[in-house]
């Protein structure tokens, strides 16, 4: 199990391009579909937590899921799993293949990958809408958050905090009205 945690996150670290949200399609596939270590809802919650805590999303997710599966040691091993490919690849590039970032074949491949990642992230978003956006309240929160970040560049932390307050308060109002 500890080895499996390390290996799954190694795979995620080695095979995702673009960091952050671009890693979401791979995490949905590996962690939700293949391993069932976490539900889609909880993965969304971890992303929310990651936006409000220091460090890259991949690290936060690895530490959280490792902890959930196998305690503190699990968290550390999952995190080492996700950073090991970076260490190997970056140190190899820095020490040996200094020219790769201007190699034309590498740049062509990267342009193709970037275009595909756009599609994958869009699909990850569509999938999340299906699982996370329910009822009128969910649809309104989703559209407002989208617009605030995309058009007005509002900090995600503020949006998450506000949405949390709305989520806590709305059921209270509903309950009072029923009485």
């Amino acid at each position: 199990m500890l080895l499996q945690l390390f290996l799954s996150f190694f795979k995620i670290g080695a095979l995702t391009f673009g960091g952050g949200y671009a890693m979401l399609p791979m995490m949905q596939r590996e962690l939700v579909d293949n391993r069932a270590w976490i539900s889609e809802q909880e993965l969304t919650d971890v992303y929310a937590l990651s936006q409000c805590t220091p460090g890259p999303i991949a690290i936060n997710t690895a530490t959280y899921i490792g902890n959930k599966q196998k305690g503190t040691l699990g968290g550390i091993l999952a995190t080492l799993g996700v950073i090991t490919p970076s260490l190997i690849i970056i140190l190899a590039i820095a020490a040996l293949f200094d020219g790769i970032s201007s190699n034309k074949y590498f740049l062509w491949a990267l342009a193709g990958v970037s275009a595909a990642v756009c599609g994958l992230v869009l699909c990850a978003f569509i999938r999340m809408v299906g699982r996370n956006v329910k009822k009128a309240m969910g649809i309104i929160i989703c559209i407002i958050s989208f617009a605030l970040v995309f058009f007005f560049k509002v900090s995600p932390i503020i949006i998450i905090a506000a949405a949390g307050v709305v989520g806590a308060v709305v059921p209270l109002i509903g309950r009072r009205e029923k009485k």
Partner: protein
Amino acid sequence: MTYLLLAWEFFKIGLFSLGGGLSSLPFLSRLTERYDWYTLSDLTKIVAVAESTPGAIGVNAATYAGYQAGGILGGLVATLSYVAPAVIIITLAAKVLDRYYKLPLVQSIFSGIRPAVTGLIGAAALTLIKNVLFDFSLWKGWESFEAVVDWKALAIFAITTFTMLKFNKHPILYVGAAALIGILLKM
């Protein structure tokens, strides 16, 4: 002594980089004012490599910057120090959350947050699409539309989206195929 300093500086960067790896970049550039570990032009290259290699961008940048400062050991020290604050904080948060996750109040808070995070991911997807598939710096009215769109990238994007929604294969298949197509089309 360099290694201790590296560890301390990258621990601080890890601690203050809220909300993902890219927020570390201003801190990495500030280091050039206080140490001669790397120059600002090195940093441009560090960021380019970090963004174009697999893995978390912040981790990649920390590894490369640490390597510039102190070789392979420097890269290891910088990376481990950089992720340490996140590991400590999330470990504590996971234990607290585990205890209270099922509480009705916590669940209603998350029921508000989930659609918000979904909206954030929608914004991230659209920002990616805008930046990768289009070059709006070439925009000079509607007659310039053809030059603004990267048609090869748009085709790969459309095929990926359609086949992913229809067949839902492993993401790495699409990434591998797109890399090959990118080379064949000389993108």
